[in-house]
């Protein structure tokens, strides 16, 4: 029996005159990857901010891991973690110090051990004692996600986790997200990339003009939309495939 990690009913939010969310409903099962898809300005970040207690909704009921977001924000915060659109790392601190800081703020025992383990599993051990300002975009993102995993939250929110990353960095993040879900963590992510949702998500919801216009598994969505037709086309490699093939060869030569 699957339990519900997120339950959203009739969520509405407006900023002054502008109705951003006009009655959003969806559910996310525990341990699944849920992708919220939508174009820029569709309201994806607003939804994440409301679910993570950063913003208050105008109306609607939201339950996160069994706690009402509006009345029990402290309990919600205890069981979630958010990785925002921009890597929220302290650039003056080292990677290790960043993780230790979060572990202390989550009131965990043995922050050093937690930092060592996370740095190792995110391939940041060598860079652990360098300031985060010297990190590449991909490394920053990994550190950012590592910080979100401190204390093993049941539910993690990723707001456009691969925006601005190169193809390799993106694939790395995909791997991390898949491993997370395998270990039982619920992942809620937003993305503008259709391919990302297709690759990762168990369920996909498409947010358009303030409401969810369609949701389901990728297979279900595929059934709904353009009818299947058989076409013969020459398969040209995409630039991404070319790039990755060359990089892959380089790595093998090494």
């Amino acid at each position, binding site marked *: 029996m699957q339990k519900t990690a997120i339950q959203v009913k009739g969520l509405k939010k407006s900023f002054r005159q502008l109705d951003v969310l006009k009655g959003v409903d969806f559910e996310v099962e525990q341990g699944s990857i849920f992708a919220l898809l939508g174009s820029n300005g569709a309201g994806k970040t607003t939804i994440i901010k409301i679910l993570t207690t950063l913003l208050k909704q105008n109306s609607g009921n939201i339950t996160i891991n069994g706690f009402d977001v509006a009345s029990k924000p402290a309990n919600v915060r205890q069981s979630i973690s958010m990785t925002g659109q921009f890597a929220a790392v302290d650039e003056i601190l080292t990677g290790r110090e960043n993780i230790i800081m979060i572990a202390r*703020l989550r009131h965990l025992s043995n922050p050093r051990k937690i930092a060592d383990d996370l740095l190792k599993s995110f391939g940041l051990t060598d860079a652990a004692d360098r300031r985060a300002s010297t990190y590449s975009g991909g490394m920053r993102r990994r550190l950012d996600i590592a910080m979100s995993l401190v204390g093993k939250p049941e539910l993690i929110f990723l707001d456009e986790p691969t925006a601005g990353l190169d193809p390799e960095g993106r694939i790395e993040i995909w791997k991390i997200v898949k491993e997370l879900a395998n270990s039982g963590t619920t992942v809620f992510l937003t993305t503008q990339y259709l391919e990302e949702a297709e690759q990762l998500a168990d369920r996909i919801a498409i947010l358009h003009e303030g409401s969810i216009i369609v949701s389901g598994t990728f297979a279900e969505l595929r059934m709904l939309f353009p009818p299947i037709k058989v076409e013969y086309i020459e398969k040209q490699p995409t630039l991404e495939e070319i790039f990755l093939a060359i990089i892959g060869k380089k790595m093998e030569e090494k």
Partner: protein
Amino acid sequence: METIKNYFFTDMGVMLGRSMRHILRSIDTIITVTITPIAIMLLLVYVFGGAIKTGTVNYVNYLLPGILLMAIASGISYAAYRLFIDMQRGILERFHTMPIARSTVLWGHVLTSLVSNAISVIVIFLVALVMGFRSSAGILSWLAVVGILILFTLALTWIAVIAGLSAKSVDGVSAFSYPLIFLPFISSAFVPTRTMPSIVRAFAENQPVTPIVETIRALLSNQPVGNEIWVALSWCTGIMLVAYVLAMRTYRKRV
């Protein structure tokens, strides 16, 4: 709620630890903050000082309080800057989605500002000592001076918090501090007000810097402080309370 309250001091400790690292790793900000006041002190003492008639023998003693206020006024702009960067990078949001005492986030910044300004003030004190500053003040007077400087720093830091939270760009974030830095010039900080034209004099004698400077000066030279100390304290606490209320309002709106 109960569990969160218990963690206030732990969280505060973490925030302070973070701040100390920031301060120690950006010693250049302390240098930037102290260099202008020290330069002005040198200029006023060794270039203009001979021509300034203050009625005191030791001009360094006369101008030091104003120089300290100037340093604090420029030091607090870094509080605004640090807060702005935290907000822009999403670090504030990260903290806010965590089960921590939320108030520690802002107080962490305020304490950082106190510590880094204290370092700047000590540096300037040392330079002033070399330049001939002497004080006959007793321990209680010194404590009073420290108290007033802390109060002044707190008052300005809360103004900096408003600026940091409402700034739109890194360039704009410290602009608010420029007028504050120059306030000591239109006060009794460096020259007595009696030679100023009447309008300027009226401003100089009724703006906060003058009573604060005169109180510190009196305390350091073992003179009676009179009513000035109460005027100074009222200015500091008044500014602090108003700025605090506005800062908290901005904070709730922005975050």
